[in-house]
């Protein structure tokens, strides 16, 4: 059996087209970033008895998938271990972990999962689902992002702050529903160093 040159050319074109289609269908290689906990901070600021108070979380694994250097079109996932909260006062921390506030026994984690990240005037905005104390709400999270090459690795710096209304998530039951002595607005600020996996 022998193929005519014409038939061979036809096969080659067909094969090439197939490969091109296959290449197009396969998603572009995404860069996966994970948190550098030592150089990252997740803090929260709140008003207690008319004065600014703050705390931070110690454990909050972050995953960021990017298609390019830009977060637009990427995917952000933040998981906060609620027990790791620290306001510098054991009595207050235990109260915050208790059933009327974060209820960490029942809801040990809070999570933000983006559904869409787009460019904004000030940087980027992730729209996604934020779950705190078992309540999931759509949340917009503003941030700035830049990458840098450090020791042959791509490193991303993500910073920003978002104001949350604690009562929308049920953080504050019973007497804590009042915002007279503990403010309703909680400013969550983040300064993350994200390291690309592989290479």
């Amino acid at each position: 059996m022998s193929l005519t040159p014409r038939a061979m050319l036809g096969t080659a074109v067909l094969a090439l087209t197939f490969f091109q289609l296959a290449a197009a269908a396969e998603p572009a290689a995404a860069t996966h970033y994970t948190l550098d906990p030592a150089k990252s901070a997740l803090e929260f600021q709140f008003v207690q008895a008319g004065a600014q108070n703050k705390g931070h979380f110690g454990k909050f694994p972050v995953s960021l998938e990017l298609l390019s250097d830009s977060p637009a079109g990427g995917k952000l996932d933040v998981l906060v271990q609620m027990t790791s909260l620290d306001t510098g006062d054991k009595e207050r921390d235990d109260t915050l972990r208790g059933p009327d506030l974060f209820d960490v026994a029942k809801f040990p984690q809070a999570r933000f999962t983006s559904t869409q990240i787009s460019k904004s005037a000030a940087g980027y905005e992730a729209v996604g689902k934020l779950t705190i104390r078992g309540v999931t709400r759509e949340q917009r999270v503003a941030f700035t992002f830049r990458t840098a090459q450090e020791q042959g690795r791509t490193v991303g710096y993500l910073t920003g702050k978002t104001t949350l209304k604690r009562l929308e998530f049920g953080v504050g039951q019973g007497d804590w529903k009042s915002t007279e002595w503990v403010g309703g607005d909680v400013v969550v600020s983040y300064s993350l160093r994200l390291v690309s996996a592989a290479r």
Partner: protein
Amino acid sequence: MTLRNTTSRWGGIAQFLHWLIVALIITQVILANIAMDLPIGVRKLAMFARHKSFGLTILALAVIRLLWRWTNPTPPLPNDLKPYERTLARITHAALYLLLFAMPLTGWMMTSARGFPVSWFNLFQLPDFVPKNQGLYDAMKTTHHALSYALYAVVFLHVAAALKHHFVLRDDVLRRMLPTARKSG
């Protein structure tokens, strides 16, 4: 009654400051005791927040009061006091002024050392007196409590002396700190 002190009687400003501070100290004792008995929660937080705001108010009033005292005549102690009574009166009054400052200052230090910034009636935030420090917090808590007992003791002496002057010695020592009573002979 004049606003300023005279050589025989406390003026309106001095009397107002004296009795306002009396009312605030009573309020402070009530708030502190309610707060200490409450379980951890918003109500305890609210009681202590008020206690701190009133305490800062007393501190400000104490400053004003001392300045007023220094810029006004001081009605003298009665002439017929025995030397030890005169000394006791001086010590008691000095201790009262000292405690008017020491109570709020140790309280402010205590809350700052604990790491809880203070506001004045939720209106404005004050600077932290000292940085957060657990050892200092413990020390200030003990001191603040001990001084409160010292205050009770000195106030007891002060009130007892005032009542003795009024009912036993029948002089005008108490009356000259009261707005309505007129100076007796």
